[in-house]
């Protein structure tokens, strides 16, 4: 499979490979958090891969996304280089954001990745703005906003549903309902339903099995097609689950907000074996090996990359190069 573009999500094999890449990337990151090489920890995406891959499989390269604190999967599925994403997590100069953003702000504007975002719900209305912008420019580009169930209670997101619907903007809202906002069960936090909220604004809304890459892709493709042909926004609630803790910090705590049985049940719905089952015999193993090799190279690249110089700590603060005053008088 070496002659195959690893970012091509157009075939079941490409999608399986991306699922595996995200899974493997997250496992690698978890290891580097444990070994202390990644500071600050990460919000692992393990378990939710089908959502990022299914949605991004429905996108064209020119389409744009905004992401969340749990963003590695979205960023990779939209085509970011895993070596540079890993370097970013490690705070290196070669990182996507030159080591200035880290896990929660990873972005690659050249690929339409307008950034992971540390504020829950913040990316939604930014994506609406990107959709408006594309329409203004006369460009056929859809914007996708990924967000969690927790964001359903952020006022700005609900405001942005209204603007997107009023102005029939080409935006797809993708709610990854993984059942919890940190420890808070969605069932105790969301009155009515996610899809009901979108429907109240006149936005076509569908509930999707977020553990099934193909189901997500089909639903997303329909919404993207509608959005890009003037049909306005769409909303998908992808029912999914994170297999790991909310954040790597959680491993150090003994939290009991979900039962081992519940976690085991959802692990039984792991999107990877489901996607592998669609492939001819032996292909999944070969793709696994190619991913392993890619990630080994990514690890080497990232760990060998240089650390940014402290002298440049305020570089890029202003786009026009304005230098802020130093913190002590000269």
């Amino acid at each position, binding site marked *: 499979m070496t002659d195959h573009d690893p970012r091509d999500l157009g075939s079941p094999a490409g999608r399986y490979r991306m699922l595996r890449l995200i899974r493997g990337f997250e496992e690698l990151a978890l290891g580097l958090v444990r070994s202390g090489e990644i500071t600050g920890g990460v919000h692992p995406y393990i378990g939710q891969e089908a959502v990022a891959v299914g949605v991004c499989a429905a996108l064209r390269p020119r389409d744009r996304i905004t992401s969340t604190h749990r963003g590695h999967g979205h960023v990779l599925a939209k085509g970011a280089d895993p070596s540079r994403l890993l370097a970013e997590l490690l705070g290196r100069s070669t990182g996507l954001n030159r080591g200035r953003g880290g896990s929660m702000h990873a972005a690659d504007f050249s690929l339409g990745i307008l950034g992971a975002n540390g504020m829950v719900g913040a990316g939604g209305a930014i994506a609406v703005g990107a*959709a408006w912008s594309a329409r203004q420019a006369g460009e056929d580009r859809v914007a996708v906003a990924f967000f969690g169930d927790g964001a359903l209670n952020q006022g700005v997101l609900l405001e942005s549903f209204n603007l997107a619907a009023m102005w029939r903007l080409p935006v797809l809202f993708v709610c990854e309902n993984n059942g919890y906002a940190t420890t808070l069960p969605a069932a105790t936090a969301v009155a009515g339903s996610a899809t009901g909220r979108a429907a109240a604004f006149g936005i076509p809304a569908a509930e999707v099995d977020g553990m099934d890459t193909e189901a997500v892709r089909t639903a997303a493709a329909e919404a993207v097609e509608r959005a890009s042909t003037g049909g306005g926004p769409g909303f998908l609630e992808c029912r999914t689950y994170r297999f790991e803790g909310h954040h790597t910090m959680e491993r150090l705590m003994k939290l009991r907000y979900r039962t081992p049985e519940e976690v085991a049940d959802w692990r039984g719905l792991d999107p990877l074996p489901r996607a592998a089952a669609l492939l001819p015999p032996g292909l999944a193993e070969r793709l696994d090996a190619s991913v392993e090799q890619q990630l080994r190279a990514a690890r080497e690249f990232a760990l060998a990359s240089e650390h940014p110089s402290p002298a440049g700590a305020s570089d890029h603060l202003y786009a026009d190069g304005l230098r802020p005053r130093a913190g002590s008088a000269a």
Partner: protein
Amino acid sequence: MRLSYTKALNRALTDALAEDPAVCVFGEDIGAGLAGPTLNLLDRFGPGRIVDTPLSEQAFTSMAIGAALTGRRPVIEFQIPSLLFLVFEQLVNQAHKFSLMTGGQAAVPLTCLVPGSGSRDGWAGQHSDHPYGLFAHAGVKTVVPATPTDAYGLLRSAIADPDPVVVFAPAAALPVRETVTWELAPVPLGSARIHRAGTDVTVVAVGHLVHDALAVAAELAPEVSVEVFDPRTLHPFDWTALAASLERTGRLVVIDDSNRSCGIGAEVLATAAEEMRLLVPPRRITRPDGTVLPFAPALDRALQPGRDQLRDAVLDVVKHRLPVPPHGEDRIR
């Protein structure tokens, strides 16, 4: 040509929209031109670029950020200065941080215009704030034009700037009119303006207070020679020009419509004390700490910095006895 402050803002928006198709305006009641600066823009540029928004400040500000990140140059007009509190997250935590956090990949050329900032007679506690100091503190480029010409020039530069800029048009400056015989042109951000040269004391006056400072300077002349220094941009502040002014005068009074603690006046005094030539202790005239402007006109005015306090402070710093320098030289630098 007779030019009002509001008309100057309107001209700046019109010229920017005409010059650059990426410029667009968002805001409440802007199609009707309710506040003035957007009058007639809808007719000329259409609803695709002059966007009347529902009352969703957080969403439309975020949207403008999304648009700015993808090639547009949005201007947002805010109806009330306190609406900026609703979108502090969007402006400070998102717009301001994108450039650094993305390692320079992204820029947010967004302009926020507040026509009618500070006290508006009779509008009471929630419509009378003047939060320019908060944005300067946060590092967002912040301008407070005092005159129609500067309002035009600074708004043009704000729109052309690649970073977010907040433009405060003080309510008390909106009635100012100028007879303009020169070509209106962009005024670079970060450059101060000396409205009146003087040798005894530098008065740093922000926004509408420039006009009060000019009145006091005229009143005290020729006994006291007051230099009226208008920073125009509060962040980045033109420290070089201030240092040069203090080289001439060695005395400093700041008049600033911020709350006292952590206001921009505090920063000017601190920087001058640390780095510049001061012969006597400086003074500042501000709103009180934690001001909430009360409704009754006399109460509202009682908490705002005014001419009487400025006159007293100027007289106080000029009569302040200098330590007698040996050999006739200043030692206090």
